[in-house]
């Protein structure tokens, strides 16, 4: 059989050209540009000390973080009517909610049964309860609260986060529970 050299060269050239086209077309792209400008501003909704601010508590700079130092008494209910406030400094209303993050000691730890409940209640400026957020125990197990529905905090208004604690009868003094709660603001 006779090989047609001319045709073969043409075919090879075509194949090579198609390869080039394929690799070139794969490299075609374009870019769009985003130029974000980030300005540091005070949070419009922030924490504020209440009239029952517990001693040993810390309000973080800028009011976006708070550490509350609470007590609990065995078989007696301790009530902090106004330990912490949540303040909307904006001229528009905002929504917020409480969301459980963590609790320590965790369920299964034998010290959990020393606590009866730690209850947070969001109250409006007139003291009317808007929503509650309860941690309670059953034996060594915590029942943690579900994420709260969003509440509307009116413009230039301060609401109250009220707290109740109770330890079990015969509870051992000195035991602590540490709770982390996120407050989502939008």
């Amino acid at each position, binding site marked *: 059989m006779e090989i047609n050299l001319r045709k073969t060269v043409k075919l090879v050239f075509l194949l090579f050209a198609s390869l080039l086209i394929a690799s070139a077309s794969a490299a075609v792209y374009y870019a769009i540009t985003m130029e974000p400008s980030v300005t540091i501003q005070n*949070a419009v*909704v*922030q*924490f504020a000390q209440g*009239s*029952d601010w*517990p001693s040993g508590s810390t309000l973080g700079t800028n*009011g*976006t*973080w*708070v*550490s*509350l*130092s*609470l*007590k*609990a*008494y*065995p*078989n*007696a*209910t*301790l*009530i*902090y*009517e*106004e*330990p*912490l406030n949540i303040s909307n400094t904006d001229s528009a209303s905002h929504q917020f909610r*409480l969301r459980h*993050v963590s609790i320590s000691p965790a369920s299964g730890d034998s010290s959990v049964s*020393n*606590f009866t409940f*730690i209850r*947070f209640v969001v109250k409006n400026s007139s003291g009317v309860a808007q929503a509650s957020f309860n941690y309670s125990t059953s034996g060594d197990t915590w029942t943690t609260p579900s994420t709260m529905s969003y509440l509307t905090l009116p413009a230039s208004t301060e609401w109250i*986060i009220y*707290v109740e*604690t109770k*330890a079990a*009868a*015969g*509870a*051992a*003094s*000195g*035991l*602590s*529970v*540490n*709770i*982390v*709660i*996120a*407050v*989502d*603001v*939008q």
Partner: protein
Amino acid sequence: MLKPNFKKTGFLCFGYFILLVLVNNIESVNGNVFYTMEIQAASTISVSPVELQNGTDNLSIIYANNTSAKISVDANSTSINYTYALNIKNNNDTSFLVRLENFNSSNLDKINTTIILHNSNTSRTQISIVGGSLNETGEYYNLTSLSTIYVKIENLTENIQSGTAYLYTYLRVKIPDSTYILYVITFEFR
């Protein structure tokens, strides 16, 4: 007469169809700007600053941690006073305001009586029960630092012989500002 151009119409329809598919495939995105703040709450079990003790009348049962009690008394047709039914002792070097608050009751028409807080010299009436009606004064009594005050049951008389009357109260211990502790004190009138 105008002749329909099927070829052009077909192309147009196809074009509209492609446009429709593209538009339907563009997803709309909704987002909210939000941020998260954090509460770290540490609650420590502590010894309560005020404790309940059985009084010299020996009528009280004191429960665990001395933070709740039951006072049991017999009522009869003759008026009787129990001056030291229960002791309320302040172990703290701070003064507290205290008062009794009713939160539940049953069969109160069985008895008439007045419940008083006192320190043997001064007193404050807390609750009166007459003809089944309860009156609460809401008055605070000063429990000075490291002192003891007493619960007095005054002029207890029985109206109805059968049954037992119960009065459930909180002893509210007011810590400065609006923080307070509630101790349960139950009165049982047999």
